[in-house]
């Protein structure tokens, strides 16, 4: 704990002497936990960066009310890897293995809110993979969709688009 404080003091004193470029950015999660990140990380988050730019870099504490302290570390981890150019298939596979369906969706919302293109693309692929070849009911549950078709309407639609519902099996080949 003592170490943590002193390193924190260090970073504070550095940021005082050199306020322009190397000041760390504080991201405050919805549940009021502060994450200190390098400015390069903030650059990956378009929403955060445009906020910083708009205030000419004077404000370095950024509230992110929509993102929980549970999700933010994942986002930061991904951004760090991305900056280091270390986003590999292996890393992404490991990364996604840790996440359950709800977490994937939460991170997707976070990536969308923060406007992190690479993470958004990656999570879109993850969601697509997780609903691939699943039943209509499963996909409705996954997206939180209430079916507002009457049974007649649904049957009619299936008939109209019979070319998509009959005889064609969804592709179940592995992506490579």
């Amino acid at each position, binding site marked *: 704990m003592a170490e943590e404080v002193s390193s924190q003091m260090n970073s504070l004193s550095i940021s005082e002497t050199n306020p322009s470029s190397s000041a760390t950015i504080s991201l405050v999660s919805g549940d009021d*936990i502060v994450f200190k990140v390098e400015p390069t990380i903030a650059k990956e988050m378009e929403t955060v960066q445009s906020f910083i730019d708009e205030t000419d870099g004077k404000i370095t504490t950024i509230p992110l009310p929509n993102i929980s302290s549970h999700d933010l570390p994942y986002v930061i981890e991904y951004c760090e890897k991305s900056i280091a150019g270390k986003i590999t298939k292996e890393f992404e596979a490991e990364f996604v293995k840790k996440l359950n369906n709800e977490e994937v969706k939460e991170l997707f*919302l976070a990536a969308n809110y923060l406007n992190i293109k690479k993470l958004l693309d990656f999570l879109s692929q993850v969601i*697509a993979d997780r609903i691939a070849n699943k039943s*209509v009911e499963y996909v*409705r549950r996954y997206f939180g969709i209430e079916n507002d078709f009457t049974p007649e309407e649904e049957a009619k639609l299936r008939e109209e688009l019979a070319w998509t519902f009959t005889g*064609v099996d969804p592709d179940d080949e592995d992506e490579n």
Partner: protein
Amino acid sequence: MSNLGHEILIPSNNKREMHDSQENRVRLNDLSDCVLLHILSYLNSIQAVQTCILSTRWKHLWKYIPTVKLHYSRNSPTVKRFDIFLSNMLALRDNSIALQALDLDRGLIEPQLLEKILNCVYSHNAHIRQLEISAISQSYPILSCVSSCKALTSLKLSLYNIGNKNYSETLFPKSLNLPLLTSLYLVNFTFCGFENGCVEPFSPFTKLNSLVIRHSKIKKAHILHISNETLVDLAMRYNSFNFVEIQLSTPSLCRFTFPDSLDQKICGTGLSCVKHVNIDAPQNSYLMKHRFVLLGWLRDLASVESLKLTSITLQILSLVPDLLKVKLPSLCNLKSLEVELIPHYNELLIVLMKDDMLKKAIPKSFEEVAKLRKAFKAGLKLPSIPDGIVDFLRQNSPSAQVIITT
């Protein structure tokens, strides 16, 4: 959370438990159409169209997806339905929405269907950025359509050309000019050389970052020149480039998968800066010259950080006489060494390795040799990774991590 290395200044209760108890908290359906379309663009098109049944909101959403992604699986008996699906989808999608990506893996394509697909591509050729076509079809119409797509950043083509009812080779066009292309993946092409015996097919792509060439060949040339300044990734596998010299002038090359043939000479400045290397030598490369080709490659890898090779590659390398005494000038920055264990199917390599082991035993003692012979007769299995070879590779960076995979 501390293992992620971020300082947490204000401690708070862990919210994890709350998380798990609230299933389906996140409703993606509350997002805008635009965001949902982004997700849909990663689905294969059949399932993407089927989302019309989810609710009234989704009924027409699929028509605005900016991508088409269709892979025909070989086990499916419904070729005809697949084609009906494709032409219906192309006809019904909202054509005012720019098509940004087409990923089609179809096998044999009838000319009429091909025409529909290509017409769709032509009508969006100013916008389309990613194109992946794997098909058995006439190559020429596809290639001329591709050459009209000037906005392409990523192109993957696997074409089995059918001419007059026969398969014929697909010549890689010499005049293909795609100025924005960063990623190129080619399967089953023939690169035809000029009068000087050189072929340099990729020089028009000045932004090229990643290049993969598979199952391809070279005609009328003995030198393949790759000189893209921006090239970072290069992989060549399963090609028939035998006895072709590959010249690399690629100052940015970072990841390289060596050709799976040891009959090729690789020269130029490309290898010295490569950081990640993959070598998978074929089992039939047991000639003396092959062993030295491998050793030569390793000598050239001055800055490699991660080296991945197969156990077969190590076995071939181990047959270099007095290998373990060789001082390597390279491999000084090696951080990880990955060996993939590959089972043998070629008896000759095993015979050579046994012979080599016996030769090494001779100076020790006669008993040693006899013991070894007896053990071989009793079916002694040779080690997949020859003794001492891992340390040989790590001689200039002994702390490199060793990873063994199967």
